[in-house]
């Protein structure tokens, strides 16, 4: 196997700034686009985090007037929309873009220009959303940013109840970024199916590639319905149609269905790449190959499949009738089975291994524990009568933040630390990484463990304030304190990345003694990735290279 790369001078060195920027703007290189996605997502992570902090300050004590009710509505709408569409999705696509071609031994994605187009569509979508702060009011006295909630139920979005242009900015921004998402998903599928290096059969692909393949399939099947629903909403608002207009016989419930047909698979779109990070990081830091590779693939496909048929568990409180309720209760519970299989497989990978608790592994260990709890509250909420009691309460908010922060964000932080040496060529600071983990871990549990309790005590989500004496005060103070811990941890994280980018020790091509192809090329990799396309014979090509006396392909 010839994987040695020629040392190549850093292309940016010595060029004028304008020229460097021009190269970044016009790039079609999957690694640069991946980094653009990631940096873009980090920027929005900070913005969305500020919005969350504003909400937490407002809710810290009863009858607070830190922000007005109108501003509070804008904050939760912008926070949700930003975090899902402009933080989580770009992070998923950024890492996917960067890693997939490297891991399957390709020189680039299948359609490099489509790749650039998709990124800029996503970027433009985020710009449109935030431009609403400036251009959203359109009408005197109308609100200036979207305030309809991230799932924008009808009839809040009708012309009658949403004057001005704020909702239009929301619709257009999601439409445009949706085109970008579908473009990237098409690209990922075509790359994985058509660009693998010789010997890289589907059964030898790194799990990350398998999981991203599933994710891309879900994006195609789930984001497109959202695009359709947004088009309908736009037709309603601009051409006076009646899709979601109850006075003309239209249905508000059908918007819910259309939104959640997107909205629930979207959770799997985000969590499956998180599983992918865990599936790459845990084996390397346990010094064992992944346990049960074929079962992991099967469980992933199973999650993708069942994930398409659970959407209406977001709608138990609407009153869908016994038949639909039963179906969605059972399908939602069923999805816990393949997810459980995955958790056992990760545990079995760690079992008996030499575990190295570096920052990436710490985050993955945190993920395992937290994702289990998130899954358990998910099974609780899947029971329709329980859901009738706690639907739309802070219990639900705590549950899905447990999934998104405790599951997805934790593994993503792990992925940042794990692949930072590859992307930048330098090591991060391990002490700061561990400090980040512990601060964030404490902050996360302060916020989201205790957020369950006011939910059980009856605190509904999306209220801008509450009366004293309901027993919610203490919990809200604790939750807000946790938010500040998390904010501090994020600052340390960003500082660590920036400092290490300039001053970190050189990483070399394979700092973790890992087994997948991205570690066989230089850090950062040259623009063509591999001087000579590698040829693989097993699931751990670098193991074969390092241990010619005992290669994996003898046993697979």
């Amino acid at each position, binding site marked *: 196997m010839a994987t040695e790369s020629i040392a190549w001078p850093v292309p940016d060195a010595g060029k004028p700034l304008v020229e460097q920027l021009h190269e970044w703007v016009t790039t079609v290189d999957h690694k640069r686009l991946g980094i653009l996605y990631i940096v873009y997502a980090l920027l929005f992570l900070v913005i969305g985090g500020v919005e969350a902090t504003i909400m937490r300050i407002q809710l810290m004590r009863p009858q607070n007037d830190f922000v007005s009710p109108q501003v509070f509505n804008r904050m939760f709408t912008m926070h949700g929309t930003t975090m899902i569409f402009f933080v989580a999705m770009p992070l998923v696509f950024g890492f996917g873009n960067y890693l997939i071609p490297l891991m399957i031994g390709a020189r680039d994605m*299948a*359609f490099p220009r*489509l790749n650039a187009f998709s990124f800029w569509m996503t970027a433009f979508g985020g710009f449109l959303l935030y431009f609403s702060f400036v251009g959203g009011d359109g009408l005197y006295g109308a609100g200036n940013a979207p305030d309809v909630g991230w799932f924008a139920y009808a009839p809040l979005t009708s012309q009658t109840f949403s004057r001005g242009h704020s909702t239009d900015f929301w619709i257009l921004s999601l439409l445009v970024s949706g085109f970008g998402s*579908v473009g990237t*998903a*098409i*690209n990922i*599928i*075509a*790359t994985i*199916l*058509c*660009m*693998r290096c*010789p*010997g890289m059969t589907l059964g030898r692909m790194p799990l990350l590639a398998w999981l991203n393949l599933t994710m*891309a399939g879900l994006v*195609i*099947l*789930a*984001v*497109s*319905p959202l*695009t*359709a*629903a947004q*088009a*309908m909403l736009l*037709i309603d608002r601009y*051409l*006076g*149609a*009646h*899709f979601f207009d109850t006075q*003309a*016989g*239209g*249905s508000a419930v*059908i918007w819910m269905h*259309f939104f959640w*047909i997107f909205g629930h698979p979207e959770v799997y779109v985000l969590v499956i790449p998180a599983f992918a990070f865990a599936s790459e990081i845990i084996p390397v830091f346990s010094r064992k190959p992944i346990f049960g590779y074929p079962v992991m693939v099967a469980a992933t496909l199973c999650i993708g499949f069942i994930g398409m048929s659970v959407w209406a568990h977001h709608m138990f409180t609407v009153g869908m009738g016994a038949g639909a309720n039963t179906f969605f209760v059972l399908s939602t519970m069923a999805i816990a089975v393949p997810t459980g299989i995955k958790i056992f497989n990760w545990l079995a990978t760690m079992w008996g291994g030499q575990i190295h608790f570096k920052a990436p592994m710490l985050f993955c260990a945190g993920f395992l524990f937290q994702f289990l709890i998130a899954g358990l509250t998910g099974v609780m909420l899947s029971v329709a009568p329980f859901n009738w009691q706690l639907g739309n309460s802070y219990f639900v908010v705590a549950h899905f933040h447990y999934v998104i922060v405790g599951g997805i964000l934790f593994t993503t932080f792990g992925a940042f630390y794990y692949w930072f040496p590859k992307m930048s060529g330098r090591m991060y600071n391990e002490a700061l990484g561990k400090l980040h983990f512990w601060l964030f871990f404490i902050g996360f549990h302060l916020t989201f463990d205790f957020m369950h309790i006011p939910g059980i005590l009856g605190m509904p989500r999306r209220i801008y304030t509450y009366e004293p004496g309901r027993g919610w005060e203490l919990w809200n103070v604790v939750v807000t304190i946790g938010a500040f811990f998390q904010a501090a941890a994020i600052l340390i994280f960003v500082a660590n990345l920036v400092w290490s980018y300039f001053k970190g020790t050189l990483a070399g091509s394979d700092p973790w003694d890992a087994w997948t192809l991205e570690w066989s090329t230089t850090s950062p990799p040259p623009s063509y990735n591999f001087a000579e396309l590698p*040829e693989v014979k097993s699931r751990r090509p670098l193991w074969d290279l390092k241990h010619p006396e005992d290669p994996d392909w003898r046993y697979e």
Partner: protein
Amino acid sequence: MPRWELPSRGVVGMYCLIAAEAAIFTIFVVAYIFYIGKSVSGPQPRDVLHVPIFFTICLLSSSITIHFAVRSLRAGNVRSFTAWWLLTIVLGALFLAGTAQEWRHLIYDEGLTIQTNLFGTTYYSLVGLHAFHVTVGLLALAAVSLLAILGYVREEHAERAEILSMYWHFVDAVWVVVFVVVYIVGR
């Protein structure tokens, strides 16, 4: 080691695009079916819709002509390719003209617009979405025919022509669904 062959990225990409488009159409079709008979005021579909048999035949036969075009190009016969390709464009344009005529009739003679009732809303959206896809397809086909007339299309481009033809077949297949839902079930 056996020869290393992978599927064509163009074909895979087009299948993925078709899947995404199919998901979009599914939502519009579901909305159409869900709202059948729920309009609170007239006109109702059975009062105003006529089955567009001729134009349907035009569109469906354009799938056959584009198939022949691609087959000619595979055989290296660029002239025959260009002729079949242009015939496809004519048939597609005829279909589009048929839709335009139907809409004109509905708007001016029957007074049905997208604002009139749920039937108008769902009908114009679904048929309009399809007509939009026909238009995009026609623009792409026209671009290829322009290249063909200028002499840039050769035998080695057969796969690209075939990928475009997959899109066109998809647009035709969607029409079968729209036709059944709007003109048969919906009436």
